[in-house]
């Protein structure tokens, strides 16, 4: 069996790729994709911890299932808002979102 640490390495890598993408991308959709990477890293974590450390309960799996559902909801709302941004700006680059500042 693959040791647990390898899974955790993958999930941590995904998490920080997501964080990096969140701060550096300039397009709203790629930012959303980066955030989804963070959420998926968390799902992997839960599944792995459950499978390797506490196989007698399914609490971690339940959390993963709920968090997949919730990230779908979040993606739906975020894309709806991105569409409204597109209607107002005719593009979805973050450089257009510069009206609100000091």
């Amino acid at each position, binding site marked *: 069996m693959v040791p647990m640490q390898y899974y955790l390495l993958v999930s941590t890598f995904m*998490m920080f790729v*997501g964080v990096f993408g*969140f701060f550096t991308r300039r397009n*709203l959709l790629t*930012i*959303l994709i980066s*955030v989804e990477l*963070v*959420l998926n*890293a*968390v799902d992997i*974590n*839960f599944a792995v*911890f*459950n499978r390797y*450390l*506490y196989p007698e*309960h399914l*609490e*971690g799996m*339940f*959390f993963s299932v*709920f*968090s997949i559902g*919730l990230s779908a*909801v*979040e993606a739906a*709302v*975020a894309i*709806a*808002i*991105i569409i*409204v*941004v597109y*209607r*107002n*700006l005719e593009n979805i680059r973050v450089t257009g*979102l510069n*009206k*609100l*500042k*000091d």
Partner: protein
Amino acid sequence: MNYSQILLMRPELSLIALIVFYLLYDLIAGEKGRKYFHLVVSLGLVAHIAYNLCPTGAVSISEGMYLSSPIIGIVKTILTFGTLIVVMQSDLWLKREDTVIRRGEFYVITLFTLLGMFYMVSSGHFLLFFIGLEMASVPMSCLVAFNKYNHESVEAAAKYVLSALFSSGLMMFGISFIYGLNGSLYFNDLLQTITASPAQIMALVFFTAGLGFKLSLVPFHLWTADVYEGAPTNVTGYLSVVSKGAVAFVTLTILLKVFVPLLGEWQQMMWWMIVASITIANLFAIRQKNIKRFFAFSSISQAGYIMLAAICATPVAMTSLVYYVIVYMVANLAVFGIISVVEQRSNGKVGISDYDGFYQTNPKLAFVMTIALFSLAGIPPFAGFFSKIFVFWAAFKAGFWVLVFIALLNTILSLYYYLLIVKAMYITPNDNPITHFKSDGYTRVSLVLCLIGVLVLGIVSSVFGILNAYSFGL
């Protein structure tokens, strides 16, 4: 599992009934019925408050996943009261041409966020806590985008939804490590297994980062000013008071129930966050030109004061936190009610300089605003003074006297910038002030309620006593 247990969730069930009723009302009631929609919603919320006013005893459903105690019931009532005030103040805005057909959505979405906060407040398991938090923050981004033809509103919504998603990702990462290290997510089980090992501290840091985003404490506050400025004014009021109050209460309960062995680390972390929030927000507030942005920074510093109660983790601190939230709620909602009615009646004037000479044309509103600002700043006869005293006293007794001293210095600073608005309204001359107008009935009632709160809550000392009697159960 015994399904009749679900009937014990009284506040949630009655709120769900209200939501379903309003959804159907929006569908079925014709043009004529929808004229009374606002009245129906306000009365429904009043009925909801009345139905849940008596705090119920301790309730625990499905092995402690859902917990309720008298103080949690009180907090839910307070949140409903705040929502009622916000809904009442939104009447003028919802009668506008572009929003009038979507007014049903506003009520339903608002009540859904309130439902999420209810579940979050009475969660006994991280899953329920997380679902409640998402239920409170995802529909909130729809509310922020409610003026969808307006660039500012949409921009604020994009910023809000992405930072809310990111912060909940961070928080979930922390929760996943808590699960991996302890093998359970029930608050009761966690209390026995949590230790101050480095991995647990890392989990706590991620978790606190997520909460800090929701509370807009300083290293995580960057979204606050933009979102508060761009969102519709009533939604800003809702965000700054109801949502923040719920998260602040949850932060303290989770600290008391789960992270007890990590109290030292938590306090050190919060110490720096509080000092940064209060000081930086106060300094930034001074240079703002837009009144909504100004109150965004004011609310960041008020969140710092609220966390001053959460840092000590004692029952008295719990009481002072709830008391602070009530007092902050009435004062801040009075301010936002006035900003909202001025914005609607004067074609969107939200600059601080627009308020020059406001007293000459609208003396009553200027007077209410002044009292609310005095309460926010903590000037003696008003409630804000007493709430600040209780918070400082709780922190002082827990030994944080340097922190209390810094907070006191910042109170003086905050007095300066709150008085800038008072000065603008009473003293600064203006050739072309906001013209005299009549505010609508709902706004008047809500402002009177807030004014009574500001004047009475501080002087009637039994309020604090009642809260204190209940908060020991936690």
